[in-house]
């Protein structure tokens, strides 16, 4: 009697895990399929959490993702994977159970970077925003009517939250070490536009501000933030929007190229062992995967965006079902969107490494524009503020490696002037993993 095959185990039951599992079934995989999720929830959608859910327009529970294919899967929800044994081909879960696999898809995603406990991170009133439960808790705290909300970190989540909170009429201060909001994503040239939106919306933006610690009252509730210059900011509710760390803690002893910056893969989405060889039975997709992106000279990137989770998971699933001689490289043009201050923001490409930027349609003053980022004379990214209809043309130009700027003689095109995008010189090191380890728990 042959033993029953262990089948495929997908660790991570969010967007990438779900879409990967669906792609496996659509690809004809008929064997056992198990999805492991740290949270007790079925897969849900995250983008609405920092928008409609905070605003109260959507219940946190109403964000469940549609399941597009019949999965016929075993769900192991509410029990995180805590260890991987590659030799035995098993995954151990927090509840002590052990799952055997023939092939493994790692889709554990990332977690909000927490504020360290030793500088006040465990005070009541300090929130992060990553999961459905975070959003529900934060929404409840907002409804209670905080007197001073401080958002630390003016990235996408910080700015979306600020926009939402101002719509709710709450007093908001947004503090960031950079000179402009969204400086890491877009540079200060474009970030300045969001600074104007924040001002018009009545939020206080504090550039160049380093928060050192939070201080609480006798009951252990946050009352103020202590800044690097010694001054203090009153705050009875804090949102720590410090970015994410990849959930790779459970892979610590698996002898893979994994650290809080991600799990390194080869071009075919196969996880790399510590010695650099690709594991034929372990694939990764979504926020957790660090992969060589062909469009940008094979640079290793984690693309923490919705579209990548869907596309990379489908691609990994395809390769998992294909033979070793038919492993196709993953080519993807990164893209993401945000909505804040009534503006639809979309970016295609990667801005990292840009040495110039130009507004090619519209104007920053009108807050409706298309900006293209260039590097060494080549167009590498295009950013739209309420002009997304034109993005496909610019995406095509970026894929084709077009010169910078890529499209001339467009409608509503100003005189094209190259500008310094205003990325901080320490950007590369700032985005490198900091030594804060978070486990997939």
């Amino acid at each position, binding site marked *: 009697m042959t033993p029953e095959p262990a089948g495929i185990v997908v660790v991570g039951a969010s967007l990438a895990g779900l879409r990967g599992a669906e792609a496996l079934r659509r690809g004809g995989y008929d064997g056992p399929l198990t999805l492991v999720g740290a949270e007790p929830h079925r897969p849900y959608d995250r983008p609405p959490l920092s928008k409609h859910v905070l605003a109260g327009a959507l219940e946190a529970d109403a964000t469940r993702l549609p399941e597009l294919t019949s999965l016929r899967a075993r769900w192991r929800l509410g029990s995180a994977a805590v260890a991987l044994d590659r030799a035995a081909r098993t995954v151990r879960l927090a509840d002590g159970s052990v799952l055997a696999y023939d092939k493994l898809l790692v889709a554990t995603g990332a977690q909000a970077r927490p504020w360290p406990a030793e500088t006040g991170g465990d005070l009541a009133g300090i929130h992060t925003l990553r999961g459905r439960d975070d959003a529900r808790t934060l929404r409840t705290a907002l409804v209670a009517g905080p007197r001073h909300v401080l958002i630390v970190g003016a990235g996408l989540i910080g700015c979306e939250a600020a926009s939402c909170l101002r719509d709710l009429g709450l007093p908001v201060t947004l503090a960031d070490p950079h000179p402009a909001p969204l400086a890491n994503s877009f540079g200060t040239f474009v970030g300045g536009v969001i600074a104007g939106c924040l001002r018009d919306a009545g939020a206080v933006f504090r550039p160049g501000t380093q928060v050192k610690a939070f201080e609480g009252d006798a009951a252990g509730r946050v009352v103020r933030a202590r800044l690097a210059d010694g001054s203090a900011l009153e705050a009875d509710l804090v949102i720590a929007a410090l970015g994410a760390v990849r959930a790779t803690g459970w892979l610590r002893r698996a002898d893979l190229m994994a650290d809080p910056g991600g799990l390194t893969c080869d071009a075919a989405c196969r996880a790399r062992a510590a010695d650099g060889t690709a594991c034929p039975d372990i694939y990764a997709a979504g926020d957790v995967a660090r992969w060589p992106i062909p469009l940008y000279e094979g640079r290793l990137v984690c693309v923490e965006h919705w579209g990548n989770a869907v596309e990379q998971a489908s691609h990994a699933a395809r390769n998992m079902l294909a033979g070793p001689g038919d492993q196709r490289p993953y080519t993807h043009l990164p893209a993401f969107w945000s909505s804040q201050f009534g503006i639809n923001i979309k970016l295609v490409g990667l801005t990292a490494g840009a040495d110039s930027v130009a507004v090619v349609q519209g104007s920053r003053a009108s807050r409706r524009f298309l900006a293209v980022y260039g590097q060494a004379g080549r167009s590498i990214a295009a950013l739209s503020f309420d002009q997304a209809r034109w993005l496909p043309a610019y995406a095509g130009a970026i894929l084709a490696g077009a010169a910078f700027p890529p499209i001339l*003689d467009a409608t509503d095109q100003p005189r094209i002037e190259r500008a310094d995008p205003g990325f901080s010189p320490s950007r590369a090191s700032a985005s490198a993993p900091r030594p804060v380890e978070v486990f997939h728990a």
Partner: protein
Amino acid sequence: MPDEVLPDEALFTAVMNPASRADPYPLYARLRERPVARQHDGSYVVSTHAAIRALLFDPRLSSEDLPPFKRPPTGNPIRDWILNPIRSRIATAHRPLIFRDPPDHDSLRAAVMREFTIPRVQGLRPRIAREVDALLDACRGRGRVCLVEDLSYPLPVSVICELLGVPESDEPRFQSWATQLATALEPDARHDVETRRRTVAAFDAISDYMRGLIREKRRRPVGDMLSGLATLRPNGLKPMSDFDLIATAILLLVAGHETTVNLITNAMLALLRHPKELERLRADPERAPRLIEEVLRYEPPVHFRTRKALGAITLAGETIPKGAPIILLFAAANRDPARFDDPDRFDPDRPDIEHFGFGGGLHYCVGAPLARIEAEIALVALSRRLVAPRLMQDPPPYRPGASLRGPEQLAIGIDGIA
């Protein structure tokens, strides 16, 4: 000239020929062989689904109907006015948003969309149903229905008048103006001096009419769209100028007169040619929406629109030079076998129906939801109330327009009105 000896560069001239009106589709099939086909007048006909889709989202595609600058623009409006007086005068005259580019187009369209809301359009359903019934009641006792004059034309006219707030009693006055202005949308209209003269006269007349009406709406705003547009104070934006307001009102009125008529008539023609589909609709009115979508693909009310290349555009192996006119042949893309299975078959049940029946891109028809509702209600009523309908003449006579294409008349023999 038989089709097979027509040179590729003359295909669009053949499309314009009234003899092609009843069945232009074989010409479209030949045009699709070259997705971007240069014509002998220097224009480029774009006819495949993929090529049109790519162009609609190309920022170098312009709808501006302005003559080119005689001298390069300086960016200073006063200097430009002095250097390019004729162009500048045209630029500030009445030009509706279908002939405008961003950013002006966007603010005008946003203003229209604030008024042309889904609840407002949905609210017209009972009113449309009553009108359809009254128009069909009027045909009682006759052995035939002349669909265009009995229903397809008067229905959208009365609906757009109601929506805009134009007194329907004035309708006979602007009917001929609307027809004349629609003629001006055809590409050959500009070449003919007499057509141009009549178009300008119609435009002046309808502008005077609208100016008066808008003045009245400003003085005494009521709940209609024109009152809304005339008194609109968008957030932080300046109100619409009188020029823009008049141009917008005329556009909506003409569009209401000249497009939905084709949708309803083409749909009924398709149903009479496919009696099984007519029978199925009668049995199940829920089929109406998908039926209308298939008509929009199979026999769209507007076959093409023209644009201009602001810069050189390379597409499907052809480079369209800067300044060249571009004809987006939507009706050909709707029958592109690379996009639709068995495209020449009328099949309301096809699963994939992403058509260009309302155009696409930033100039996508603002009236689409209204047109769909009107056609849906009209077709359901026709399927239920015409007793033993049959086509009296096939093909029917067509109106002259190649772009706004549809039957001049559709005579339907009946045994009565139910």
